């Protein structure tokens, strides 16, 4: 009975939403603020990737909140799972391919991760995408050797200082008499690697923070799983 009502309800909601959504003007959005941002952002922010201008400039505090959410989730997961010391040696190691493949791919993942972070203001990508790849780079060895552990103390230092530097860059602008998180420094040529003022710095902070946060989340989960 519950299942039937649930299905009926879900179907009804879907039908209603579809009816509403089909009334929308698909393919030609109003772009009230989108258009203005597109035309103003090369001068105001100076990043070739306009999504980056929005993420770090126009909606910078959203990104800060997002970092805080990741941090909160990682702290909460740490609280839940605790830090038990696992006994090494009892776990089965990964196979040959996983073990050596992981070691082989590690430097490439690092390079790609940092490349994506550094070019976040020029190409699709940025701190979040690059940070995820960094986390993967450090998590891969854990899969190959389940007993191995990440250095949580180093991770938490990176976590702390990457997050803090994002806010401190914002506060620096405030100290200069401007608004919090206002882009500073020289914008330079549009499309150059060193351009767009503080945006690349912010993205490096984001990338490190995301990488450290995800790595600690994943290693926490992996360790707890190997406890069982």
């Amino acid at each position, binding site marked *: 009975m519950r*299942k039937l009502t649930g299905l009926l309800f879900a179907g009804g909601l879907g039908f209603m939403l579809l009816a509403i959504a089909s009334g929308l003007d698909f393919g030609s959005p109003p772009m009230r603020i989108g258009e203005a941002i597109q035309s103003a952002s090369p001068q105001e922010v100076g990043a070739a990737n306009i*999504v980056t201008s929005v993420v770090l400039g126009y909606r910078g505090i959203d990104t800060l909140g997002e970092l805080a959410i990741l941090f909160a989730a990682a702290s909460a997961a740490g609280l839940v799972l605790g830090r038990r010391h696992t006994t090494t040696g009892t776990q089965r190691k990964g196979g040959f391919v996983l073990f050596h493949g992981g070691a082989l791919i590690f430097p490439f993942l690092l390079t790609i991760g940092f490349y994506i972070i550094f070019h976040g203001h020029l190409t699709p990508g940025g701190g979040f995408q690059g940070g995820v790849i960094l986390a993967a780079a450090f998590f891969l060895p854990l899969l190959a050797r389940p007993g191995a552990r990440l250095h949580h103390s180093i991770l938490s230092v990176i976590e702390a200082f990457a997050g803090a530097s994002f806010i401190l860059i914002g506060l620096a602008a405030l100290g200069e008499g401007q608004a919090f998180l206002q882009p500073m420094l020289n914008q330079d040529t549009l499309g150059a690697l060193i351009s767009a003022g503080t945006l690349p710095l912010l993205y490096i902070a984001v990338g490190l923070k995301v990488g450290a946060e995800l790595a600690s989340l994943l290693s926490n989960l992996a360790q707890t799983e190997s406890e069982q």
Partner: protein
Amino acid sequence: MIPGVTLELILYVTALGLVIIGLAGVVLSSHLFRMVLALVIAEAGANLMLVLSGYRWDAVAPILMQRTDQPAMVDPVPQAMVLTAIVIGVGIQALAVSILIRIRQRYGNLKRREVAEKMDAEIAASAGIRRDISQDAPLGERPLSPLPAHTAESRGGDA
């Protein structure tokens, strides 16, 4: 192409379909881990809907290129929002899974009904209420909660 089936229809049906499948999954599944997975599906649908809100016909990604004839670009704001929403979703899912690991360790399994009953029993025990009335006693013997424990999540979905 079948007449009447336009690209927009397909996209909207996909986005809203994912949301509905996800919500229905949360309501209907009796296993806690499947509820998390269903939530992930629903979130994907909501994110797709958000991206669609900035889509423009024949427009390119909002990245300026070194050329004079810059074609029209899609709205950058929904893309930034969706990036935020995805990361938020990932954080919450990771937390949900880590909580599930602990629930599994403490309560032995992840069946929705059993976990809800054990939770009720534990709260009552820690509050010092004698539970001589079993959970299966007539409804009138139990504290009337606005949402009975084992259907609580599902009723939430009916909202």
